[in-house]
């Protein structure tokens, strides 16, 4: 039985020597937060965390943002982390507080986002008794986190809390849960500063092996049709890594494509950038991936949304794969040169080796490769025709383009979050990101409802920046309660809804794969978003036709407070280009006129 608390744990001799003031566990936790440089946490109170909220009340160093749902707390912390490079911090109560946070935790796990989530727990003597608001939080979140802890002894509290930050931010970043029984936060606990000693078992490798980089650069120098395939690992490696990537791409003269997660690591408006690759990537990016002879994957993980049909993925290329996480290498695609290390360090070492090694890629071959790429570019796979008659229906791509152009005119630092679906892909295709950490989207898990709480997190981190959630009307209703958080903290978030009255991506797949039987994908009984906005003390706006679009966007951008802009767009628009599931990169659909040409295989139908 672990029901009897061990009194030895509370004895003074286990306390921080020299500390005369006896701190409560909650106070120790706050000291850890301050020492870890935390200035804001996102959370929601409840019985098991009341002592921690009481300690929060008595101090000013750590600001608390009260969200309206625990899932939103985690998404907000994720966006805070992604837009600042710092660890996002969450505080929720036991039981439902913790289970509500699980979706956010898995989201952070899939996208490698550093988050530390403190969950309340019933007191240690009550654990296992089905107590009120008790849940086996460490059991439930074991597969939802990079690591998790249950603090059973006051003496462990400070060490575990510090360690949680170290694990969340180092190596491949990810979410860490610290489950805190109420008696631990109420009772006395010793404070200890962060340990400088290396962790006994967890030692992520960041420095790449020189020999592997030498081999990689040698292959790059021999390349005739090279391609950089970059991912979120470079964003996680920090702005210096992104800057180094820019130098590497320019120095080599190679083309560069990016995953959804990597957008902004290399300027998307640059000539050497081919656009995003994968299911809704550009024609030139996917054809280049298919046709390249040396593929340099940096901080990317060959996700199924990127590779399409695996046996036809980049079939003739020599593959170099750099990732900080050894398990990502040879997981999906067998590669020729594996490199384990931090993306920034790998890129710096590649730059050194590029200068050190003799020779250069055959300029004629590289010139031909660029000619080929330019020919693919000439297809203009992201092109769409917008009827500019003022009464014409707004095409969603046009709305995103105009949003980008008019946002740029403001000259403000701009952060974009998204929900999940068609609007997310249109945002990825038509909004441009010339700097890292400005693009906040749920990639791996594809969590509808991510964008609005993410906008909260980004706006809290960057109060003077322009923060826009490019949303779909269905997704955003999944966390619409965050308009309350936005109102409470007067966050000037712009919620830009591409409203097509459908779960658009579901509708698109039903059209392409299920005989246009739109089973349950219609957004029935939608709210009036203008009145919804007003009821949450925000400004509501609506554009129903092209003639109204620019004025609404301008008014939204000029509004000092929060705005909900309901942009009524074409209902039947599909997201192109598209690699149908189970197809190869060179079997892209460019538009609706091709829908009949590629049949989705039986295997493809089984893929998500």
């Amino acid at each position: 039985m672990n029901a009897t608390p061990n009194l030895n744990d509370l004895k003074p001799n286990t306390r921080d020597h020299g500390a005369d003031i006896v701190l409560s566990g909650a106070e120790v936790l706050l000291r850890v937060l301050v020492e870890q440089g935390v200035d804001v946490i996102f959370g929601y109170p409840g019985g098991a965390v009341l002592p921690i909220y009481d300690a929060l009340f008595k101090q000013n160093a750590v600001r608390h943002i009260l969200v309206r749902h625990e899932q939103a707390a985690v998404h907000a912390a994720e966006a805070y982390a992604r837009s600042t490079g710092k660890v996002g911090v969450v505080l929720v109560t036991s039981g439902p507080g913790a289970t509500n946070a699980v979706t956010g935790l898995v989201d952070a796990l899939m996208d490698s986002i550093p988050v530390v989530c403190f969950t309340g727990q019933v007191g240690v003597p009550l654990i296992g008794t089905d107590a009120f608001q008790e849940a086996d939080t460490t059991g439930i979140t074991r597969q939802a986190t990079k690591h998790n802890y249950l603090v059973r002894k006051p003496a462990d509290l400070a060490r575990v809390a510090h360690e949680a930050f170290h694990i969340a931010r180092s190596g491949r970043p990810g979410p860490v849960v610290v489950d805190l029984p109420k008696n631990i936060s109420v009772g006395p606990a010793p404070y200890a500063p962060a340990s400088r000693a290396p962790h006994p078992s967890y030692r992520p490798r960041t420095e790449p092996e020189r020999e592997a980089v030498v081999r990689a650069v040698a292959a790059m120098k021999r390349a005739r049709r090279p391609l950089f395939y970059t991912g979120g690992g470079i964003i996680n490696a920090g702005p210096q890594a992104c800057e180094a990537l820019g130098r590497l791409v320019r120095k080599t003269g190679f083309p560069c494509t990016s995953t959804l997660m990597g957008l902004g690591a290399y300027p998307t408006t640059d000539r050497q950038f081919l656009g995003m690759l994968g299911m809704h990537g550009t024609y030139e990016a996917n054809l280049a991936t298919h046709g390249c002879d040396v593929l340099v994957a940096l901080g990317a993980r060959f996700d199924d949304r990127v590779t399409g049909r695996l046996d036809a993925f980049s079939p003739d290329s020599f593959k170099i794969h750099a990732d900080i996480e050894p398990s990502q290498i040879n997981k999906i695609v067998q590669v020729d040169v594996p490199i384990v290390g931090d993306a920034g360090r790998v890129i710096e070492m590649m730059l050194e080796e590029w200068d050190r090694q003799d020779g250069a890629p055959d300029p004629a071959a590289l010139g031909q490769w660029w000619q080929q790429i330019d020919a693919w570019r000439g297809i203009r796979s992201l092109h769409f025709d917008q009827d500019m008659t003022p009464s014409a229906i707004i095409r969603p791509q046009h709305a995103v383009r105009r949003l980008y152009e008019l946002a740029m005119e403001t000259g403000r630092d701009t952060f974009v979050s998204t929900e999940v679906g068609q609007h997310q892909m249109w945002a990825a295709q038509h909004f441009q990101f010339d700097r890292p950490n400005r693009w906040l989207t749920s990639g791996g898990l594809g969590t509808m409802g991510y964008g609005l709480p993410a906008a909260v997190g980004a706006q809290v981190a960057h109060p003077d920046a322009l923060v826009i959630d490019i949303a779909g009307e269905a997704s955003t209703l999944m966390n619409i309660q965050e308009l309350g958080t936005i109102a409470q903290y007067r966050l000037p978030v712009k919620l830009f809804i591409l409203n097509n009255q459908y779960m658009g991506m579901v509708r698109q797949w039903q059209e392409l794969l299920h005989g246009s039987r739109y089973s349950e994908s219609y957004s029935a009984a939608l709210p009036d978003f203008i009145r919804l906005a007003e009821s949450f003390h925000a400004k509501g706006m609506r554009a129903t036709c092209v003639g109204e679009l620019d004025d609404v966007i301008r008014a939204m951008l000029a509004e000092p407070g929060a705005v909900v802009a309901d942009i009524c767009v074409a209902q039947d628009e599909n997201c192109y280009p598209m690699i149908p599931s189970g197809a190869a990169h060179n079997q892209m659909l460019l538009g609706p006129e091709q829908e009949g040409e590629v049949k989705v295989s039986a295997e493809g139908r089984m893929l998500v």
Partner: protein
Amino acid sequence: MTMQDETIVSAVISILVENESGVLARVIGLFSGRGYNIESLTVAPVEQSRHQSRINIVTSGTPQVIEQIKAQVGRLVPVYRVANLTQVGPHVAREMALVKVVSSGEARTEALRIAEAFRARAVDTTATSFVFELTGATEKLDSFIDLMRPLGLAEVSRTGVAAIIRGPRTI
């Protein structure tokens, strides 16, 4: 360019872990979550002073999957070391079985005779039953149990494989 090897191979994975609460659940949760096989599993503390336990897992999969298992297990925070003993080289893999045989007359005598041939010890004897203790490779235990089947095999309890590298090397 690289072709994937689709042959299914068996592997003994030895994992040295921090002996903390939930560590076994982390390891087996990883196996079930990612669809890896567990054919047998043993776990026990091996370094009390350093709070270390050793987990031995017999698994099977393509060489790529086995490599993934090793890498994925290596990601877990409380894991010190993980080794694929089948890949490392010669190793000793042993398990223990307790086998209950309930019989009389000719079958009982035959069971005892076979137990002697297998160097199984009778650790419990009654007028109508034996409990044999047998240690060895998995195949040896399998064939002993097969031979006991017609002789009144009533119950089997096996430990799963404990394994270690031959020679001076350690994982």
